[in-house]
């Protein structure tokens, strides 16, 4: 896929997928996507019920899984050309990931959890002048500044998810992937969480890929995609 095909102002797309196939067991594809593209700075709502191959697609985008055939290009870099170690480094530098729940390392403080990507990868650290200050600033914007030195086990689920967002955002990576981050939150907390998430993603200028089965959230995003329609393997009854 040529860069000029990118939908926004000709800049490099955050994610570009072409003829992507993946199977855990040979001959049984769980992902089969002919073309998918997220522009830089776009907020995308990916509607994916279980069995649609959502988890696998996120694994591929994160570079944890390697495609069987086809191309998955992140920020202009074709991940299939990278070794698994290089994909790990690429992820560390350019991607922030928020899980559904249990996002935090139980033996690190909140502050240490937020700065963990910077401490683990030089490439991420080089994007931040002062990880401590960055963590502080993010924590203030996400309204968790008072919790920075707490034990993560003392946090509510909503607070934990905000810490996870702060960790994903530190160093302003180009792509933020959220895997059902609000499923454990009640409606009020969910709305507040989304407000903060959007504000901070916009501040960082990142692309947001937000996966959920809760279609009521879709209206807040630039674009909504149904994975079941994109993934030709999904109807075959994948995982």
């Amino acid at each position: 896929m040529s860069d000029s095909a990118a939908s926004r102002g000709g800049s490099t797309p955050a994610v570009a997928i072409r003829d992507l196939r993946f199977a855990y067991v040979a001959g049984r594809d769980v992902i089969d996507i002919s073309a998918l593209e997220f522009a830089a700075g776009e907020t995308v709502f990916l509607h994916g019920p279980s069995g649609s191959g959502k988890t696998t697609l996120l694994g591929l985008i994160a570079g944890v899984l390697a495609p069987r055939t086809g191309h998955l290009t992140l920020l202009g870099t074709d991940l299939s050309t990278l070794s698994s170690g290089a994909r790990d480094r690429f992820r560390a530098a350019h991607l922030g990931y928020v899980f559904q729940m249990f996002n935090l390392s139980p033996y690190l403080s909140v502050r240490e959890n937020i700065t963990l990507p910077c401490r683990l990868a030089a490439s991420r650290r080089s994007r931040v002048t002062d990880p401590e200050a960055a963590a502080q600033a993010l924590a203030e914007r996400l309204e968790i500044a008072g919790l920075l030195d707490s034990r993560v086990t003392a946090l509510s689920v909503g607070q934990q998810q905000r810490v996870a967002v702060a960790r994903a955002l530190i160093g302003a990576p180009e792509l933020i992937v959220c895997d059902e981050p609000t499923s454990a939150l009640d409606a009020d907390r969910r709305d507040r969480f989304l407000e903060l998430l959007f504000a901070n993603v916009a501040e960082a200028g990142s692309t947001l890929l937000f996966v959920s089965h809760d279609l009521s959230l879709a209206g807040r995003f630039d674009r909504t995609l149904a994975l079941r329609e994109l993934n030709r393997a999904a109807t075959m009854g994948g995982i």
Partner: protein
Amino acid sequence: MLLLSLAWRSLRNRAVISGLTLLSIALSVALLVGIEHIRRGVRESFAGTIKGTDLIVGARGGTTQVLLSTVFGMSSPTGSISWATYERWRAHPAVRWTIPYALGDAHKGQRVIGTTAEFFTRYRFRDRSVTFTEGGPPATDREVAIGAEVAERLGYTLGSEVVLAHGVAAVSFAEHTAHPFKVRGIIDRTFTPIDRALYVTLDGLTAMHEVEEGAGGLMMGPPTPQTEGPAPITAFLVGTKNRFETLQLQREMNEDRAEPLTAIIPGVALAQLWQTIGSAEVGLRVVATLTLIVGLIGMCVALFASLESRRREMAILRAVGAGPRTIVSLLVLESGVLATLGALTGVAMVYGGIVLARSAVEARFGVALTLHPLGSTEWIYLGVIVVAGTLVGLLPAWRAYRNSLADGLSPSL
């Protein structure tokens, strides 16, 4: 450095299991290193039982028997040596001093040794000579000096009356009641067989037996009083003028045609004896090594058991950019940290234990435990333990690696 800190924090997070694992490794290390220390202490005490003596001479017999009967108060003498033979060797130009030993009598199961004043001036153990808590060496044929343990066990003090018996059994029917001895001196504790012996003069021994004979008492075995000259002895210790002449003198004595003798070099005989009884230490070492293996397996099990619950933790690390290799390193580091800390704790336990128990052990067993730095054997042990501990971590690490590849960012929990 980050990984080490993560490994440490992670271990601390599972403090109870980590602590118990560390303790089990520490205990097995302590056992291994402790045995090494005790072995050395025992060996030094053993080798120090007799010092400064160049030759021990007994009637022709086994090397070990001569050593055991003379120095350790065990087994029976190989036979008797006539006074004339003793005199002849004492006059040998290479000989500087001699200490005669006449064994064969006992007092309530404790050995009685007939000797001369030379014993109290010449005999050396661990580079110390025989000293007295109270009193002094026997001067007349009715005086006895007793070892510290004899005094303690039998409750004797200076002036106590002691009746000696023939033979070494605790209960003897042939008591030399007609010739009692008085305690003249109590010897300082030596932690050698001296503590368990009674010392009388050769004259005392002879006088006792003569009285017996005159009274028509029984006589059994050596030493048999002779009609002329002093009674025979059972052994004698020799100090040579020149150490280089020792071997020559030993050969001459062993080839003595007039009276067959066995002359042994104490150091050599002790080393031989140690080799025989030292095989027990191999057994101890085997047990300690097995304990260590159990400890390492325990650590492996603890790490394996933790893996299931840590899949989420691994996924988090993966999400922030850690590769499977980082996961492997983390687990290997954890086992390495546990093994290293376990080894250090074990060594600390040994040294702490020695400091606390040193005086008690010396008083009780006569084994001087010293705080010497780790020897090469111990360093090899520790190196092997740390390396083996780290390598053991590879097993759960391999499993974690497989898990992290299979799980990616979505551990199936």
